[in-house]
């Protein structure tokens, strides 16, 4: 039972014991090679009806190559955790892939707002902090976590957050249920073939999401030797036994930026944000996703080496990202 309903409110929830059993029985702890193409990874680990989560922002280190592959494979009835993201939700709804969104931040551009108004997608309001906390609960194996926000707001009535009495102070405290997504997408700077992964810079909840999700697909700018991770354990963001598939995807965050690797392609992002209706949406999808076989063909035919070189040159801030 992964979807629960209370009154009008559906929410994704899995009994912690059920998630634990999945982790015991279905997640290998073996250091095996897990290199997949994005096509293979999405085909193997994303099913219609899945609940998906991704880290970080559309404009910074988002797993755009994987999202495009989900769209290319025309996955259906996805439920999206839209935390701190922008245009992915619009693309996934526009392509008919997503039917429910946990918000988060539902931005931006007018397309996605219009889709909500038209009832083409159902939304629930958990807030960014609420979703991050749900992910932490999922990662810790506890059914809920408490927080001193959400209280008094209308989000409480359009999510399954509840108010309980704190057993120590008697204070009203909000609680949110654990979240254990079906699939997490993480785009990282470096990974090895087993799935050990490094992110440089901040993240939303990369480790929480990897630990809390049934399946984890890592796409990486760079594949490095396993030994590098063991030489520098403080820099490991995700250890391999949480990861199911590793996709080597240079420019995998395009049109967003990958800190210290390449900058945002602002004209492309403007084009995305300019989408106002379905005609424009279908044109965008056709041009950038359906008409190319995979991420590599997209880079060759729709971005091009010259543009990629420009974007790489534009990424001049290296300090701190290593």
């Amino acid at each position, binding site marked *: 039972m992964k979807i629960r309903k209370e009154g009008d409110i559906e929410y994704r929830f899995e009994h912690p014991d059920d998630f634990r059993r999945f982790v015991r029985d279905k997640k290998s702890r073996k250091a095996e090679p897990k290199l997949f193409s994005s096509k293979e990874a999405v085909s193997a680990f994303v099913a219609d009806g899945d609940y998906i989560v991704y880290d970080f922002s559309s404009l910074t280190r988002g797993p755009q190559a994987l999202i495009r592959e989900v769209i290319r494979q025309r996955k259906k009835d996805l439920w999206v955790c839209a935390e701190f993201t922008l245009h992915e939700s619009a693309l996934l709804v526009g392509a008919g892939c997503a039917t429910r969104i946990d918000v988060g931040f539902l931005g931006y551009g007018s397309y996605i*707002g219009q889709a909500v*108004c038209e009832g083409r997608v159902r939304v629930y309001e958990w807030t960014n*902090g609420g979703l*991050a906390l749900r992910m*932490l609960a999922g990662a810790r194996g506890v059914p809920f976590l408490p927080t001193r926000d959400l*209280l*008094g707001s209308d989000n409480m009535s359009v999510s399954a957050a509840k108010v309980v009495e704190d057993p120590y102070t008697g204070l009203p405290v909000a609680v949110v249920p654990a979240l254990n997504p079906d699939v997490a997408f993480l785009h990282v700077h470096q990974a090895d073939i087993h799935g050990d992964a490094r992110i440089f810079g*901040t993240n939303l909840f990369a480790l929480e999401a990897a630990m809390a999700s049934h399946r984890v697909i890592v796409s990486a700018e760079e594949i490095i030797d396993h030994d590098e991770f063991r030489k520098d354990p403080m820099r490991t963001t995700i250890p391999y036994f949480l990861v199911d598939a590793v996709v080597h995807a240079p420019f995998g965050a395009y049109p967003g930026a990958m800190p210290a690797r390449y900058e945002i392609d602002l004209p492309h992002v403007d084009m995305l944000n300019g989408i106002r209706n379905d005609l424009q949406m279908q044109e965008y999808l056709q041009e950038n996703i359906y008409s190319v076989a995979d991420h590599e063909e997209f880079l060759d035919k729709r971005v091009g080496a010259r543009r990629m070189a420009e974007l790489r040159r534009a990424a001049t801030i290296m300090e*701190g990202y290593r």
Partner: protein
Amino acid sequence: MSRTIEFTDTEFMIAQGARLLEDGKTFFVGWGIPQVVAILGQKLYVPDVIQLFEFGAVGPQSVLPFVRGTMGGPQNTYRSLQWLNMNWAFAYSGSGYMDYGMLGALQVDPYGNINSTYLGGTFRKPERRFAGSGGGNQVASHCWKTIIVIKHEGRRFVPRVDFLTSPGYLTGPGAREKAGLPAGTGPYRVVTSKALFGFDGETKRMSLLAVLRGLDPRDVVKDMAFRPMMAKEIGEIPPPTDEELRLLREEIDPSRFLIRGEKMSASA
């Protein structure tokens, strides 16, 4: 002899916001215009302010120009004190370390409640849908003093928000505490493109503190869909300074994407 300064309403809103920042204090900065306010303030007035972003950048010193739309990029996280993640960011605010929060809004009501979710209709059938809370709900719940930055359009100031995304004083004095929100927190200022509001200590209702130089306070409030309280003396806010405008136009937003708006003028 006084010069006349020309500027957009957005420029004025950003400039007066930047002047409100208190040096050596912590600011939890929301997405969009609040980012620009914080950058302008830090560059010009409060170099030792500590910005916090919900994605875990603690104390960045942004690189200019500002890249519109972005928050987590290398420009906005440059030279941070610490890079963490979202659950840690809200630990800083939850444990009381954030002096100020700064948020945009679609609508605001007399108690400083913020709507950033939808306008018109119902939640399931809204007339216009917007981004929702993001981390705004946490910022408005946890920070000691929340500053709301909003365009001065009458329809944005409503007796009751269509959706209460981020809490102000809810239904009035004591309501936040009764709901379980951290004691002693709440909205502090509303910075608009024409005026500055505070909140009355007793009633917790929005109160006009000052207006842009040259504007008549009665004109400023006449379009608002609720009647704000009026401070005993309504102050006068100088228009953007040359240096504020130069920085905004030449260094922060040279593409003029963010600072565009309705043209205004006032005597320097």
